[in-house]
C-alpha cells in the first residue's frame, strides 16, 4: 500500500515556532529563537515516523506542536481531519484522548508521590467517566500489557528500575488508547541492555493497537530499526525527508551523509573513512542566510548562502532540501 492511497493522520503545513529571547536591556530589538521553521510533514496512520537531528534542532518543539502543547507562530496542523491549531480548550481536551507522549526521562515524568495505580489511572480520572473499579481493572490490564504485574499497582515509582519505570510511563500513555503517540527519545535515558526490550514492547503495542508513533531519537541505529519514514532536521528546518530504507541506503543531503558517517561502529579495526563536520551548530537566533547548513557543509558552493534550497524529490518518497539536487532536478 503506498502512502498516496491513505489519508494522513497528522498534517503539518508550513509550521513555524519561535520563542522570544529575553532582552538584555529595554528598547532592544526583540529577537527570537527560531526553533521550527516552515516544516511541512504528513504522518500516516499506523506508521512510525522518525525525527532525527542534533540536540537543539527543534525535534522536541516539533513534537510538542503536534500535541497542541506549543502554540505555533504560523502554519496549520491537522489531526485526524480537524484543525488542531484552531481548537478551543474544550475540544483540545477531547482530542487529548487520542494523543499521548512517552518521555525521555522516566525518573522525572512520574510523580514520586503517586502510586503506580494513581499514575496510570491519572489520564482516566482527568478525562472522567470511569468508576474506581473500572479504573482499577483498566490499569491492571494495561500493566499486564506492558509486562508488569497486578501486584505492582500499589507500589511507588521509587521501587522500580529505569526500564520498569519506562514501562509504567508507556502504560500511562496507552491507558486512553490513543491513536497517536509521541516517543521523545524513549530509550536514551535507559541502560543499553534495556533498549531492545522497550523498543520491542513499543513495536508489539503498535501492532496490537494500531498506534501511530512519532519517534524522536538521535540514535540512528534505533531509528533504522524502528521507523518507517524519517525526517532529518537541522536548525529547525527539514533537511531530508522520506522512507527510512531510501534515506539510509542513499542519503542525499550532505548533512544526512555526515550523520550516517558518525554512526558508531562496533568494529574496532574499521578503517572506514569518516567525514567529520567542522565547527559548531550556529545559534538558532541568528541562523546563517540561505541554506542553514552553510559554513559546515563539505560540499558548499558559492550559491548556497544566496537563497533557501527547496525541498525536492530525489526519488519516490525521498525528498531533500539541497541545491545539489535542486540543480539536478532542473536539468
Amino acid at each position, binding site marked *: 500500500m503506498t502512502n498516496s492511497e491513505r489519508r494522513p493522520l497528522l498534517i503539518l503545513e508550513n509550521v513555524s515556532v519561535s520563542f522570544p529571547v529575553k532582552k538584555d536591556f529595554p528598547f532592544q530589538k526583540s529577537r527570537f529563537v527560531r526553533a521550527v521553521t516552515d516544516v511541512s510533514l504528513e504522518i500516516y496512520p499506523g506508521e512510525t515516523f522518525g525525527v532525527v537531528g542534533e540536540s537543539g534542532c527543534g525535534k522536541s518543539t516539533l513534537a510538542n506542536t503536534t500535541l497542541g*502543547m506549543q502554540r505555533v507562530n504560523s502554519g496549520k496542523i491537522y489531526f485526524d481531519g480537524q484543525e488542531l491549531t484552531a481548537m478551543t480548550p474544550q475540544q483540545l*481536551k477531547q482530542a487529548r484522548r487520542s494523543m499521548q507522549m512517552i518521555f525521555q526521562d522516566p525518573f522525572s515524568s512520574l510523580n514520586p508521590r503517586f502510586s503506580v495505580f494513581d499514575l496510570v489511572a491519572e489520564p482516566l480520572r*482527568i478525562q472522567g467517566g470511569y468508576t474506581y473499579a473500572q479504573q482499577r481493572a483498566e490499569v491492571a490490564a494495561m500493566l499486564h500489557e506492558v509486562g508488569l504485574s497486578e501486584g505492582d499497582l500499589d507500589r511507588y515509582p521509587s521501587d522500580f528500575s529505569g526500564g520498569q519505570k519506562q514501562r509504567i510511563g508507556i502504560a500511562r500513555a496507552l491507558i486512553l488508547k490513543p491513536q497517536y503517540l509521541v516517543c521523545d527519545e524513549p530509550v536514551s535515558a535507559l541502560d543499553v541492555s534495556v533498549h531492545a526490550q522497550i523498543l520491542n514492547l513499543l513495536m508489539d503495542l503498535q501492532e496490537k493497537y494500531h498506534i501511530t508513533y512519532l519517534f524522536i531519537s538521535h540514535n540512528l541505529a534505533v531509528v533504522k530499526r524502528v521507523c518507517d519514514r524519517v525526517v532529518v532536521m537541522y536548525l529547525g528546518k527539514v533537511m531530508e525527508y522520506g522512507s527510512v530504507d531510501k534515506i539510509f541506503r542513499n542519503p542525499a543531503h550532505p548533512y544526512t551523509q555526515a550523520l550516517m558517517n558518525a554512526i558508531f561502529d562496533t568494529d574496532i579495526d574499521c578503517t572506514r573513512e569518516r567525514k567529520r563536520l567542522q565547527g559548531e551548530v550556529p545559534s538558532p537566533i541568528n541562523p546563517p542566510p540561505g541554506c542553514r547548513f552553510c559554513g559546515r557543509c563539505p560540499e558548499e558552493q558559492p550559491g548556497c548562502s544566496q537563497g533557501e534550497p527547496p525541498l525536492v524529490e530525489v526519488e519516490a518518497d525521498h525528498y531533500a532540501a539541497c541545491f545539489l539536487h535542486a540543480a539536478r532536478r532542473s536539468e
Partner: protein
Amino acid sequence: MKKVLMRIGCILMQILYAIGRFFKKLWKHKQGRVGLIIVGFLAILAIFAPLIAPYDPYDVTQRAAKGLLPSWEHLLGTTITTGQDIFSMLIYGTRSSLSIGLITGIVIAILGSLLGIAAGYLGGWVDTVIMRIVDVLLVIPTLPLVIVMTNVLGTSYAVIVIVFAAFGWTGLARVIRSQVMLIKNANYVKAAELAGASKWYIMWRHILPAVSNLLIMSTALTSAGIMVAEAGLSFLGLGNPEAISWGKMLADAQSSGAMLFGHWWSILAPGVGIFLSVYSFMRIGLALEEILNPRMRKGSNMIKVFKHLNNTYLDEVFASMDDDSKRRGEYQPPAANLAEVAVTDAAETKPQDPNAGPAADTTSENFEPAEKETGETA
C-alpha cells in the same frame, strides 16, 4: 450535594494523610521528637486547662490571698495585687499563646501557599501583581504597625492575628513561588497537562503536595515568631486585656513590684512558659528543615557547627591575616623563629644563584638540600 460532601471528605482525608505522614517523619527525628512532646504537653494543658487548673485564674476577689508565697495550696503563690493563683494563670496562659501562634501561622500558611502557587504556576500578570504586592508589604515593619493598629482599632487578639497574617504571608509566598517554578517544569506536570488536566487539577494534585512539607515547616517557624510577638505585645499592654497571657503576667508582675518583694517565681514561670512554647515550635521547624534539606543533615548539632567553624574557617581567617600582614611588612615573626625564616629564605634563593654550586652549599648552615643535591649528581 452528596457528591460535594464526598469530594470535601476526600480532600480532608488527603490533608490528614499528608499531615500524619509528616508527623511520623518528625517523630523519627530526635530533635523533632523533643519538640513534638513539648507541643503535645502544652496542647493538653491548653485544651484541658479548666480541669487541670486548681483555681479560677480570673478570680480577682481573693483579697485575703494576696501575694502568697508558693505552698502546696498555691504551687506558685498568688499575685501581689489581685491574689490570683499564678499556677492556674500559667496553665490558662498556654491557651492564648498557642492559639494566637497557631491561628496566625495557619492563616499565613494558607495565604502564602495560595498566592505563592498562583504566582509561580500561573505566571504572567498574576505573578507580576502578586510579587509587586509582596515587595511593598515586605518593607513595612510589622510590629510598629501592630502597635499603631491596636491603638486605632482597640486592643484585641483579632487585630493582632489579622495584621500579622496580612503582612506575614509575603516571605512564605516568595519561597513557595520559587519552589513551584522548579516543580512546574517537571515532566510529570507536563504529562498531566497532556492528559487534559486543568490548571486547578495540577495545582491541587501535583504542586500543593510537593510544597506541603515546606508549608508545614514554615508554619511551625512563623508560629514560634508570632508567639514571641504576642508575648511582647501583651507585655506592652497591647494584647487582649481580658485574656490571661504570659506576656501580661510578666507585665503585671513587674508593675506590682514582684522583684521588690522577692517573688521571682512569678516572673520565672511565664518566662519558662514562653520559652518552652517558642522553643518547641522552633525545634519542630528546624527539625523539619533538616529533614527536608539534606545538606543540613550533617550539621544538626550547633556545637558541631561551631567546632567546624573553629577548625576551618577561623584558621583560614587567621592564616589570611598572617599572609596579609607579611606582605605589607607589618608582620614581625617572634624572635625564636627569626633564624629559621632567614635560613629557609636563603635556601629558597640559592638554587637561583648560578655561582653557588653543591660545594658552596656544604659550607653554609643548611646541610640537607646540599646533601640531597650531591647525592643526585653523583
